[in-house]
């Protein structure tokens, strides 16, 4: 209980807080859906992508998953729509759209 | 010995009155008494008048105040007689012990009419004879033990030998000198 972070959230009761509000475990930010803060949304144009992977390290939120050396579609649970990836892409394979999609 | 013996030490910073009070607590402890040994602390420096205290009792001591009506007063530095009211509160059935080379008659006028026992000891002479240096602690300690009768001479010397053996483990050559200072003081305090 003292380290269980699964009950943390806006409705957490004091009895369910971790000891001293410590957070046990790594990469816990992944559990937090920051994608809901997004104002603009990127679109991944798979056909234009050459898998150069310049976009992935440019993303401040690690919202471009890379598996076996290839990038996948955006992780919209964590993308905040900043548009840095669009500027990083040399092949116009990323387009930004206004609003949340 | 009374149920509770209270002793006040007057000295000057650096002369070891505090150490002497702690040594007395030490040796009295080793004879099975309850003890307190504590100095009065302030911003005093070398040469400033300082006060230290002892309580010795067969019973547990609970009180944690300074001592205002001592049974005995020990004056480690006779120059204090002119600036400090050393007999203040001193019980008339008690005594004052002064480290001096003078005869006690010449000091009595400095004792604010104190009617109790007055003892003197020339701790400097004893210390120089026994140790070749001036450490008034050991002679004054022996003098207060003798005058107060908190323990007999043999027990005192035996316990002090043990204490010195421990304290001077790295320089045993000074043990005999200190023991001699104690023995001389036991004889010469009067």
């Amino acid at each position: 209980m003292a380290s269980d972070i699964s009950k943390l959230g806006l409705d957490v009761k004091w009895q369910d807080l971790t000891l001293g509000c410590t957070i046990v475990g790594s990469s816990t930010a992944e559990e937090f859906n920051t994608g809901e803060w997004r104002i603009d949304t990127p679109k991944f144009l798979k056909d234009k992508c050459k898998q150069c992977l310049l976009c992935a390290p440019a993303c401040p939120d690690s919202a471009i998953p890379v598996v076996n050396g290839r990038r996948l579609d955006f992780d919209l649970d964590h993308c905040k729509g900043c548009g840095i990836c669009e500027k990083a892409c040399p092949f116009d394979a990323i387009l930004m759209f206004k609003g949340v999609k | 010995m009374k149920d509770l013996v209270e002793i006040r030490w007057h000295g000057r910073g650096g002369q070891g009155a505090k150490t002497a009070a702690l040594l007395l607590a030490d040796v009295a402890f080793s004879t099975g008494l309850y003890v307190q040994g504590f100095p009065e602390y302030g911003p005093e420096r070398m040469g400033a008048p300082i006060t230290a205290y002892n309580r010795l009792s067969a019973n547990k001591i609970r009180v944690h105040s300074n001592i205002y009506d001592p049974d005995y007063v020990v004056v480690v530095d006779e120059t204090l007689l002119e600036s400090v009211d050393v007999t203040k509160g001193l019980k008339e059935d008690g005594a004052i012990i002064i480290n001096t080379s003078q005869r006690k008659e010449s000091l009595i006028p400095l004792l604010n009419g104190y009617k109790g026992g007055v003892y003197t000891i020339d701790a400097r002479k004893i210390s120089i004879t026994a140790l070749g240096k001036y450490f008034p602690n050991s002679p004054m300690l022996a003098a207060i033990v003798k005058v107060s009768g908190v323990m007999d001479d043999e027990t005192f010397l035996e316990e002090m030998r043990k204490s010195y053996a421990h304290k001077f483990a790295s320089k045993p050559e000074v043990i005999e000198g200190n023991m001699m200072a104690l023995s001389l003081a036991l004889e010469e305090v009067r």
Partner: protein
Amino acid sequence: MAIKERLSGNEAVATAMRQINPDVMPAYPITPSTEIPQYFTSYVSNGQVDTVFIPVESEHSAMSACIGSEAAGARTITATSSCGLALMWEVLNVAASDRLPICLSLVCRALSGPININCDHSDAMGARNTGWIQIFAENNQEAYDNMVQAYRIAEHKDVMLPIMVCQDGFITSHAVENIELLEDDVVKNFVGEYEPDHYLLKDDESIAYGPYAVTNYVMEARRAQLEGLRNAKKVTLEVAKEFEAISGRSYGFFEEYRLEDADLAMVIIGSAAGTAKDAVDALRDHGIKAGILKIRLFRPFPSEEIAEALKNVKYLAIMDRCEDFNGSCGPLGAEVRTALYNKNLHPAVINYCYGLGGRDVTVESLTSVFRDLQKIQETGNNGEFYRYLSVRE
């Protein structure tokens, strides 16, 4: 087998620390607690303990290092006094809210100003609401015994809070008195190893301490912390019981001295309680029913139990060894009154500020407090609720 010794309060606490053999000691020297790290570093140098001693450049750093060290999983100890504790204030709160069972030996000394090195409780009382457990001693024996019990209380899973083990500067810290020590292995077994569930250096686990809490969390965080502090009451008694089994000395939240049938009583903390007992004995010899309640555990405050112990008292003096600048009472005065009020008890109460900056507290001065209570008894007039003892005016 108890070891009969004669030690000053500082020597006694340093001895307990040696027997506990904590992992880390960050400390910065300040009178009158300086001797504690001084003795302790000699134990470190002589190889008598395995402790890592961290010299730091201030008390703020000392407590910050304590927090880092304790969070890393190391049993951590420090010592301070007066302005040193005041300089720690910011981080004292962090140590408590991070639920780190650090132990601090506080040798109580007046806070400046005027600058002074002697005893009062203004330092401890200034830190009374930082979330630390606070436990006080009357003499060197209690300072030692409390130190031996400290980690067992602080590190208990239901508590996990830092603990301040307090004694009176110079009055007990520098006075050599008789004491009974426990043997090293007895203390070692009693205290045991510190085995936190989670800590920074734990293999194959990550943990973050002290994360930012948005408004939505802070009240819940405080409430959870309060629960830990409240649990310290139960644990203090459990630990005291176990301690009695190894030492023969019994402890509780407070000590009641001739209180059972007392009409006149005094609530007091620290070394002056011993002096007060002598005053009570003399008054009892004259047929005056006087008694003492000496606080041991001040945080958490054992409010209900204190009220229960005082329920038959008709005239009560509450003794505060600090000026709280409240205007009408001291901290102990306020809290004991609250305890009584909550139980619908209404003895005549006066609250004294006493013993500031080492002002000597004597059998006579404490007897005069009981005389003041008798005066209220005789006249029915409470007079001033908040008074100064032994002040020239």
